């Protein structure tokens, strides 16, 4: 079926039709309209490419891009596609380079994407060669627009796009700056997982705080994130970005809410309590802020584990989730050890996030059975407004209100 014949359920955004997670034509429009459209995609952290010549590969939609630090120190983001025959000129996930050279005919590009070398451009013994009017300056790698903020690098395929700060809006910018203060970052490592589910389910997982009190035994039992903790669910003016903000409640206490939490285990005790040795490090009282930034970034602060999670779709039925765990250069050895320990909560084997990757697999298997049915998204009402609690799916509804506009659905 074509995307043109898809009709959103009449009820509105409190119904999400299952075909948005499975239809190839919907997915193709997402790649063009969202990832190559007027959006800022997260590419990586400057600390991953600290020196001139450092580069990393990233994915925006399904396009491979190279983020490279040029000789003069600026970060360039380039489409990984030779201007000659379209090959990927960069075949390593990260490294150090003086130039990028296509293996096929050795067209050679500078770190800023400009074409510098074309073998046999003037021919051999007066024969062959490129036409006289061939201009190298017209055949560089495609350069994306780049925005950096406090060590985070974003790029856009769009020619016309608002500045990153306006794109985030004041509320989301303030939450972004809460973690990215401008202090120098220290990369602790990356984790990558290939999740057999539609990319939007990852966003919805983070925009749905309701599930966390039911699914995640760790969060519930240790009070890390729970419906009866003081919490907020906030969006930007468009609804495309959101944040769940919460404060850790009492540890291991039963309350009026825990009766309905089948996963609450009052008796559970860690044999090594160092896993939950949490130090307050932000000026506000929040102990967890999970922020989603359209179209491909989650910023995670839970306990003392900080990470970006970048979403790279791979067809409608799968995506790669690329986690970069980090701290600050000012961290002492104890803090770095703590962040690494807390990282056990997250990632492909996380005490918390493992539940999510398994559930997303189950969700995709379930959805595919009948694409014409729809999800019921009514927790916390049918609106898309901010709420001062997390017993809600308002951020999912807000996300789809914006998604429908962009997609024309």
């Amino acid at each position, binding site marked *: 079926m074509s995307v043109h014949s898809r009709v959103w359920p009449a009820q509105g955004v409190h119904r999400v039709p299952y075909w948005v997670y499975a239809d190839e034509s919907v997915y193709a429009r997402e790649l063009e309209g969202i990832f190559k459209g007027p959006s800022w995609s997260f590419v990586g952290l400057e600390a991953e490419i600290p020196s001139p010549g450092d580069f990393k590969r990233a994915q925006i939609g399904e396009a491979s891009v190279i983020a490279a630090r040029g000789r003069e120190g600026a970060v360039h983001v380039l489409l990984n596609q030779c201007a000659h025959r379209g090959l990927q000129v960069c075949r390593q*996930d*990260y490294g150090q380079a003086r130039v990028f050279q296509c293996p096929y005919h050795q067209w050679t590009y500078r770190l800023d994407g400009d074409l510098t070398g074309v073998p046999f451009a003037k021919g051999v013994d007066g024969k062959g060669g490129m036409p006289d009017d061939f201009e190298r300056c017209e055949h560089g790698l495609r350069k994306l627009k780049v925005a950096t903020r406090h060590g985070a690098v974003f790029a856009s395929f769009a020619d016309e796009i608002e500045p990153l700060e306006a794109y985030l809006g004041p509320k989301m910018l303030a939450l972004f700056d809460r973690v990215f203060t401008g202090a120098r970052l220290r*990369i*602790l*490592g*990356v*984790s*990558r*997982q*290939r*999740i*057999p589910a539609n990319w939007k389910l990852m966003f919805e997982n983070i925009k749905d705080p309701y599930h966390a009190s039911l*699914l995640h*035994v*760790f969060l519930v039992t240790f009070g890390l994130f729970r419906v009866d903790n003081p919490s907020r669910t906030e969006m930007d003016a468009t609804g495309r970005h959101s944040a769940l903000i919460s404060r850790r409640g009492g540890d291991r206490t039963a309350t009026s809410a825990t009766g309905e939490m089948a996963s609450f*285990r009052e008796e*559970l005790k*860690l*044999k*090594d309590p*160092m*896993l939950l040795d949490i130090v307050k490090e932000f000026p506000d009282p929040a102990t967890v802020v999970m922020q989603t930034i359209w179209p491909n970034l989650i910023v995670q602060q839970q306990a003392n584990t900080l990470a970006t999670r970048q979403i790279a779709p791979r067809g409608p039925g799968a995506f*790669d989730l690329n986690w970069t*765990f980090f701290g600050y250069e000012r961290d002492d050895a104890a803090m*770095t050890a703590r962040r*690494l*320990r807390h*990282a*056990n909560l997250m*990632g*492909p*084997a996380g*005490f918390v996030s*493992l*539940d999510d*990757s*398994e*559930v997303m*697999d*189950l969700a995709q298997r379930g959805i595919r059975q009948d694409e014409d049915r729809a999800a019921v998204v009514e927790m916390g009402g049918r609106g898309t407004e901010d709420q001062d609690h997390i017993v809600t799916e308002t951020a999912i509804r807000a996300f789809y209100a914006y998604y429908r506009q962009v997609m024309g659905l």
Partner: protein
Amino acid sequence: MSPAREEIETLYARHAELLDEGPISEWPSLFVEDGLYKAVTRENSDRGWPLALMLCESRAAIEDRVYAIEHLALKIPRRVRHLVSTIAFSAENGGYRVKANFAVFETLEGEPTVCFAAGRYHDALVRDGAGALRFREKVSIADSAIVRNSLVYPL
């Protein structure tokens, strides 16, 4: 086979058996009390980044991890199968430094078996109070940077 090799191979056979056939709750007993278990990717170890997929800095933390696998994690039912081979070792402080290749196959219920991970162990073995050979350090370095959905069981 030398007595040393036989003793080391017996430990690795027990390691694989406990993870694959169970009871996994006995797997932590293969570590000394201040033992370390870490599963990392080659990407991080090559780049000098300390992040682990699983990090247990004591036998107590290994027991917590195993308890979570058995009783807390929401997981699609599965079987894993560890193959350990090409064990190389050298004597060190009454114990051994060991490097060995591993492969882990995974079978989700209702699905064909897939190769889930391959990599190399960088381990340190010591004798516990009773003279039995145990892991002081077990570091599993996975070749692929990408985990196939979820890493449930130790590598």
